[in-house]
């Protein structure tokens, strides 16, 4: 099977690596091969975070340009930043809640309108948008926005792991007392994308 490529893009503190590790866990439980790159620069938080994952027969943990099946954008600008990973069959799932970089709040740079970013991506890819923060709030804990995104990813046709497998992995990867709220977040993300498609 051609490796299934996922590029996770967000900002430090958003739980991007936890989200990707849930998917990795589910893949391993199914007995699939999975490789992933976690690269973080020198800041503890607030900088861009990208994780690249390939499920299936792959050795390189970098998704070649054009070969991302999914770009999972936890933040609009960060989703746009990794667009070069997309190709003809890429779906972008983007959370529309911006995190304004400091360079913008001090007035050195500007943050483009989210609709403009979505528009540019739509010209080339299938784009699904949702408010992960809004759904996390609905689930009962803002910190579950990353798991909302995992639920959203799971709902995509062609995603190689099914809903039950993914929920098992959520249970293993989040602290016990937060399992319930995270499963709720997962469901909300899943339903949101199922509805959009």
């Amino acid at each position, binding site marked *: 099977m051609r490796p299934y490529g996922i590029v996770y893009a967000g*900002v430090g503190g958003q739980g991007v690596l936890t989200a990707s*590790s849930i998917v*990795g*866990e589910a*893949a*391993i439980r199914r007995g699939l*091969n*999975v*490789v*992933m*790159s*976690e*690269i*973080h*620069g*020198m*800041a*503890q*938080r*607030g*900088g*861009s975070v990208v994780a690249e994952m390939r499920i299936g027969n*792959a*050795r*390189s*943990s*970098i998704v*070649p*340009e*054009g*070969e*991302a099946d999914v770009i999972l954008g936890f933040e609009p*600008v*960060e989703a*746009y930043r990794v*667009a*070069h990973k*997309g*190709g*003809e069959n*890429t779906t972008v799932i983007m959370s529309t809640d911006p995190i*304004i*970089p*400091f*360079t*913008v*709040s*001090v*007035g050195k*740079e*500007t*943050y*483009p309108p989210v609709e*403009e*970013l979505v528009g*540019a991506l739509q*010209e*080339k*890819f299938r784009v699904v948008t949702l408010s992960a923060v809004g759904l996390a709030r609905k689930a009962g804990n*803002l910190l579950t926005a990353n798991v909302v995104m995992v639920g959203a990813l799971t709902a995509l046709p062609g995603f190689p792991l099914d809903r039950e497998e993914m929920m098992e992995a959520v249970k293993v990867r989040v602290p016990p007392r937060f399992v319930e709220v995270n499963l709720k977040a997962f469901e909300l993300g899943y339903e949101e994308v199922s509805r959009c498609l």
Partner: protein
Amino acid sequence: MKYDMILDPTPGRKAFLLGNEAVVRGALEAGLSLASTYPGTPSSEIGNVLHAVAKKAGVYFEFSTNEKVAMEVAAAGAASGIRSMVFFKHVGLNVAADAFMSTAYVGVRGGLVVITADDPSMHSSQNEQDNRYYAQIAQMPMMEPSSPQEAKDMIKEAFEISEKLGLPVLFRMTTRVNHMRGVVEYGELVKGKPKGRFEKAPSRYVPVPSNARGMHIRLLKKMEEAEEMASTSHLNRVEGEGDVGIITSGAAYNYVADVVEEHGIRARVLKLGFTHPFPRARVREFLKGLKTVVVVEELEPYMEKELRAMAQVEGIDIRIHGKMDGHFPRHYEYTPEVVKRGLNSALGLNLPVGGVKVREITVPSRPPVLCPGCPHRATYYAIGAVLRAKKIRDETIFTTDIGCYTLGIQKPYEMADYLLCMGSSAGAACGFAKATDQPVMGFAGDSTFFHACIPALINAVHNRANMIFVVLDNRTTAMTGHQPHPGLPIDGLGDEAPALDIEKVVRGIGIEHVEVVDPYDIKETKAAFRRAVEHNGISVVITRRECALIMDARNRKAGIFRKYDVNQDMCTRCYNCVENFACPAFYRDEEGGVHINPYLCDGCGVCSQRDVCPFGAIEEVKKE
């Protein structure tokens, strides 16, 4: 516990491990007894895992004061007959180099594995030196894994080869392997000997010239043996068939293998895992029947030069492509695109490169910044105010060092003018104090202070360098992920340990003007720096306040969520807070009103002081 899975005894278990985690598992399967390190990305997680599991696993582990000490500790472990491992980032090996070179001469009894984590593309480093050359300088066998599974398995082999040859083994990883996560299948855990015993043999362990001469000859002999081992090692293997050859290693192998497979390139690939000494017999065999061979390796043309030299010496008639004829770059880490472009150029192929281009929109950058609540921000802010008032802000030379506080280079602080390496803040400050008439101020963190600043400060005292030295003491090694250091009451095993007092150390080496302040108290901090500036001769200011992330974690656990906000009735929109203090939690709305993002604010309260907001407009948000 976060790293419990590393100690899972079940052979055959499959875990999704980071390369760094797999290294620890491999060492524990190899009967590791002793490990030492100084933290440095991309090797840091190896230490974090050991910090969590070493005691349970019966392994001695320490965060050493610096890499040289770590190297010496591990070398002594191996000389005592127990399996020992030392690890650091690539530039850490520069610090350890003196000891490293000699371990090859004196050799080992128990296995000794020296892990270097190179950082092509400089994700978190000051250079991208290729440490494979260290194996050549020291005459040491070297291995290069490509994946977490390989890292785990190869560590075991590295220990065995080290013991067979009586030499340390250099284990060279790169960021993409250290920070690659993959499926790792476990083997059996093996308990290491709890203690070794040192058998005296001065002719063997003391390289005075008369001994060292014999040692060098012995070492060269051993390298011949090592080359034979490399040539027959299964770590150097051939994949595929074709009349084009590709020689590759490390992370580059992953891209080559995927590209060859995906695009059905007919090529014979020699994947080298045991790369020094260069396995000439194996390579000679591989080249038979080939007209063209391409070398694909990151950074320096290490294998390519070996290959070209060998072809010249042995009169092998073959076309060799690589970096030296311009097909592959000599900088930054490789990607599938770099490999495809290189193969296209070297072999005249036409592999498709690149994805879809989306419409260009200018998006803001997201450079790393000091965290909200970071005590370093308060320190820089206070110093800036003092120096500006004294009209020496622009004159002053700021030497900086390696840590989060290097971000003082950014606007609006701009207090980082010169940096070489760990400890250079102090040494270079001595130099600037002598070479110029400008005021000189050096910055180092607490961990860096212990690592390499003390000898330079002794130098400053003895040679009467007129300078101010600031220790930004945030009670941890923050940038690499909060490892302990000699100033903290905890050691590598997690046991209670004597904590060294930085103030006593600097007083002990003869510095008289020393002050300790809490940078969160801006008024007091300013006063301390005013006194330091007025003092003639060397002075030290220790700004002590724990890292904001540690405070956050503790507050979160205790259910404390303090937040601040701007009282719009009192704010005059002078923007001193946004423009000069510049906590990332501040933002301006479209109308120019100043606000604090409650998700980012960590409640440090520093901005509520009159020294930041002269109008007292920033207040704690009262819980209803």
